[in-house]
């Protein structure tokens, strides 16, 4: 009798935490099942407790890979953006999450990789590597990359200048980018607060844009960053006050919105 061939998983000797930390991750039935169950609970929570509403879902591209950018002031932001996608698409949506925060301890890794399907983004020393991961992800048709270009949660709920990494990622590429504005998440669950409050959260999705005609480079990156910052700001429903400031260096076209 011919012996059977067994194709052992090649990461058999790696712990669960290590397997979740690696990216791209392998599809895993239990992780997928857990994610769907967790996100069903989160969706119910968002609709019931935060009276979540979304406007502009029709602007999301139906085919191919694309990028979603939004303002960031709360941990609720990522759930808010994931609510824009059907449950069947959840495993193809990858929110970029800070590697130094979400991919350190086991509970955070389990939450970030297991529930949110996050891409570990090194925002300190390995930015080029992280941008490479993002490009690789987008090269697979159907994947969605979610990025908060402010780099961190805003402490005061005001939208802060975008980092130019988003421009470097998109310049000269065919991937559409969809600007989104999240309203109310800061009031509902601000940075530093332990318990979310029952405040209304709304998501506004803008029209996609493509920067394939721009040549990759610093100048294009700054232009894209500035345009996206304005695009996100313009989606704010209360027409918040814009403040343009000159930071010098790379962040030359940063915009602030002060919400009333």
């Amino acid at each position, binding site marked *: 009798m011919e012996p059977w061939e*067994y*194709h*052992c998983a090649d990461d*058999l000797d*790696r*712990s669960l935490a290590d397997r979740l930390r690696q990216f791209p991750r392998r599809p895993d*039935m*239990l992780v997928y099942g857990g994610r769907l169950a967790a996100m069903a609970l989160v969706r119910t929570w968002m609709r019931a407790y935060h009276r979540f509403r979304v406007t502009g879902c029709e602007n999301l591209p139906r085919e191919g890979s694309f990028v979603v950018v939004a303002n960031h002031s709360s941990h609720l932001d990522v759930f808010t953006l994931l609510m824009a996608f059907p449950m069947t698409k959840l495993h193809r949506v990858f929110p970029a999450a800070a590697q130094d925060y979400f991919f350190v301890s086991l509970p955070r890794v389990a939450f970030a990789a297991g529930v949110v399907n996050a891409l570990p983004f090194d925002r300190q020393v390995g930015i080029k590597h992280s941008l490479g991961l993002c490009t690789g992800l987008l090269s697979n048709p159907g994947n969605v990359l979610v990025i908060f270009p402010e780099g961190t949660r805003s402490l005061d709920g005001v939208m802060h200048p975008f980092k130019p990494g988003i421009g470097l990622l998109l310049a000269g590429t065919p991937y559409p980018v969809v600007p989104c504005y999240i309203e109310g998440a800061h009031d509902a669950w601000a940075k530093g607060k332990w318990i979310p409050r029952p405040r209304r959260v709304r998501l506004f999705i803008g029209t996609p844009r493509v920067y394939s005609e721009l040549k990759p480079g610093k100048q294009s990156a700054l232009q894209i960053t500035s345009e996206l910052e304005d695009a996100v700001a313009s989606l704010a429903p209360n027409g918040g006050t814009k403040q343009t400031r000159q930071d010098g260096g790379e962040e030359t076209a940063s915009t602030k919105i002060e919400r009333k």
Partner: protein
Amino acid sequence: MSPTAALHSTVFQIYVAITLGLLVFAGLAIAILKWGFKKDMTHPWASYRGWLIMIPLLLLCIFLGRIPTIVFFTAVAVFGFKEFARATGLYEDWGMTGAVYLGIIGVGIVSVVPNPRLDVPGWYGLFSIFPAYVIALILLIPILRNRVKGQLQAIALAVVGFVYIGWMFGHVIFLSNSTHAYGYLMYLLFAVEVNDVAAYTCGKAFGKHPLRSEISPKKTWEGALGALAVSMALPWVLHFSFPHFGVLECILTGLIVGIGGQLGDLSISVIKRDLHIKDMGALMSGHGGILDRLDSLIYVAPLFFHMVRFFHDIY
């Protein structure tokens, strides 16, 4: 089983005292050897850290009651099968693995629901016949797919995975329904681990003749016989776990744990050697995977369960 029952159960309290006492004793021993005698305790410390998590978690689930215990052991079986599927390559076949996951969850459910004809917890009739339904489901998958190539191997692995991890281990889950659940469960878990430790210790101290050289070169006849001797003595030492057991049941319990524990260990070694892997997984440093920890228990549980059922019924 319930928190109130646990607080009033002498058996539960004695086992809590024994296990926590052993944890403290082992911690002190490691500390003295490390700092007093400057021994390298890296491996024992890694193993000890695993116990520091596993023992309190297990005691907490048993304390919380029947359903938390069943849920906990069902989850252990699910992740144990996941290790098996990853080691054998079956994990790439989502249909087969999904069917086995469903089967294992089904074992948990039939262990929770009451028998509709008898007023007792757990539906034993359905539990005992459950493999037939799961195997029928596994056999159905290639038919639905209209696929032939490689399906015999996938079916065989799925059936072995379910029967070995889902159903044989499922007897531990079902024991939670017994009127003597604290005694049976805690004795079984404790005795199987003591048997493993005794085999290792006796093998280290006196081992010369290999038990099964092709399967597990480090295991020796001396280790196995030492473990059997310890396991034969344990039912008398811990007789408070099952005060209704007579001499014959105690002897059979000792034989089941002493011999079954070793056979369970060798069984998983056969699988690992054939797959050319050292451990089934890497759940905890110093322990390998879930199946490396549970191998003896999987083999012993159904034998002990049916011995108890033959002499006393489990209720």
